[in-house]
C-alpha cells in the first residue's frame, strides 16, 4: 500500500431526510478523499451533518445521491453480505455511548467480531487477551461492561474495534461521554494505535483535544465542507487562537 492510497473517497454526497412533508437536506454535496494511515478528525457544531457524514463513510447509511468509495469500492453496489463483511473486517467502530454488549464480558465483547469473521475460539481468546493487554485491561477481561468505568468501557470498545485488524477505525464522538483526562487517554490510545498499526482513524468530534493529534481536520458547516486543514496549518491556527 502506498502512502497516498485513498482509503475513503466521497463524491458529491447528498443526504436528505424526510421530516413530515418537509425534505431536510443534511449533507449538501460533500466530496473528500481520506488517505490511508492518517488520523482524521471531522469537526463541526452539532446539527452540521457530521454524524450523518460519518455514517455514510462507515457504510451504515446510504447517500441520497453521490457515491462513497471505501478502498475504491462503491458501497452502494454491495449486497447485505458484502456490507456485513466490510463492517466486520475492514472497519472498526467506536461509539460515543461505548455500545458494548451488556450481557458479555470484556473479553467476549472483543472476540465477538472475530467470531463473525470465522476465527476459531482459541485463537480469538488469545488475540482478544492481547488486545485487552494493549489497552491496559487484561486483568479486567472477565468483567461485564456494567462493572467497568466509562473510560474502561471505551478502552474495551477500542480493543473491539481493532479485533479483526481493520483498515479504518471510525470513532463517533469517542470522548463525548468521558471526562477531560479519560477523554485524553482515549485520544492518546487511538493515536498510538494509528501509529503502531497504520490504521486510518476517522473521528467525528467537537472535542478540541482531538486537534492536537490529528493529521488532518475536516471542518463541516451546514452540510458542506467549510475547510480542510493539514497538520502544519493547524498548528498555526491553534497558535493564533491561544
Amino acid at each position, binding site marked *: 500500500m502506498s502512502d497516498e492510497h485513498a482509503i475513503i473517497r466521497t463524491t458529491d454526497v447528498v443526504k436528505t431526510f424526510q421530516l413530515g412533508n418537509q425534505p431536510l437536506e443534511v449533507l449538501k454535496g460533500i466530496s473528500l478523499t481520506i488517505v490511508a494511515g492518517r488520523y482524521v478528525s471531522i469537526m463541526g457544531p452539532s446539527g452540521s451533518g457530521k454524524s450523518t457524514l460519518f*455514517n455514510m463513510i*462507515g457504510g*451504515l*447509511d446510504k447517500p441520497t445521491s453521490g457515491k462513497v468509495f471505501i478502498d475504491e469500492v462503491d458501497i452502494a453496489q454491495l449486497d*447485505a*453480505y*458484502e456490507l*456485513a*463483511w466490510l*463492517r*466486520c*473486517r475492514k472497519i472498526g*467502530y467506536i*461509539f460515543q*455511548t461505548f*455500545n*458494548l*454488549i*451488556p*450481557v*458479555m464480558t470484556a473479553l467476549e465483547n472483543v472476540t*465477538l*467480531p472475530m*467470531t*463473525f*469473521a*470465522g476465527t476459531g*475460539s482459541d485463537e480469538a481468546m488469545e488475540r482478544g487477551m492481547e488486545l485487552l493487554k494493549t489497552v491496559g485491561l487484561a486483568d479486567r477481561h472477565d468483567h461485564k461492561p456494567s462493572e467497568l468505568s466509562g473510560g474502561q468501557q471505551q478502552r474495551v470498545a477500542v480493543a*473491539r474495534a481493532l479485533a479483526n485488524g481493520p483498515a479504518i477505525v471510525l470513532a463517533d464522538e469517542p470522548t463525548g461521554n468521558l471526562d477531560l483526562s479519560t477523554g485524553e487517554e482515549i485520544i492518546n490510545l487511538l493515536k498510538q494505535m494509528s501509529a503502531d498499526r497504520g490504521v486510518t482513524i476517522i473521528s467525528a468530534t467537537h472535542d478540541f483535544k482531538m486537534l492536537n493529534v490529528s493529521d488532518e481536520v475536516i471542518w463541516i458547516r451546514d452540510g458542506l465542507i467549510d475547510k480542510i486543514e493539514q497538520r502544519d496549518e493547524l498548528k498555526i491556527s491553534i497558535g493564533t487562537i491561544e
Partner: protein
Amino acid sequence: MEKLVALPFTKSVEIAYKSIRARFFRSLITTLSLVLAVAFLCYVQAGNNIAEGILQNGDPAGLQALVRAGFDVEEGDTVIGDTAKQRWIVLLSLLVCVVGIINAQLMAVTERFREIGTMKCLGALDRFILRLFLLEATIQGLLGSLTGALIGLLFAVFSATLVFGSLVFSSLPVKNLAMTMLAATAVGCLLSLIGVVYPAVRAARMEPVEAMRVEE
C-alpha cells in the same frame, strides 16, 4: 480472502443462553404465561387420560365414580375425548398466551435495539440476529413448557385423587400421560416460537443506524 461472515451454531446457542441468564427476570415473565397456558393444557388432557384409565380398567365402581364426577360415559365405552367446552377454553388460553408472549418479546426487542445495532455494526447478518432470538425463544419455550407440563400433570393427578381416591393409582395410564406431556411441551415450544417471530424479524431487519439512534 473469501467474503464470509459466520456465526457458528454452538456459539449462537451460547450467546442465546447467556442472554437469557443475564436477563433472567425478563425471561421469567415472558415464560410465565407460557408455563400457565401449557400447565392448563396438560391439566385438562391428563385429567381425561386418567379418567380414561379408570374406564378401561373395567371396574364397575370406577364407572360409577366417573359418572358421579360428571363424565358422560356408559358401559362399553373405552375412550374419553375432550369436550367442546374444554377445547374452547384451552384454545382461548393458548391464544391469550401467544398474545402475551408477542407483547413481552416486543418489549424485550425494543430494549435491545442498541445491542442489535451494535452487533450489525460488528458484521452480524440479519439472520444471525433472527437466529439468536429464535434460539432464545426455543430455550425459553422448552424450559417453560416442561415446567408447565409437569405442573399440569401433578395437578391433574392430585385433583383426580381427590375425586376418585386410590382408583387413580391402580389404573394410571403412564404411557398416555407421557404422550400428553410431550404433546403439551411441543405445543408450548411452538407457541413460544410463534410469539417471537414478528418481534425477531422486526429486530433483524433494522438498519444499524436506526437501531443506534434509539435513546436508552
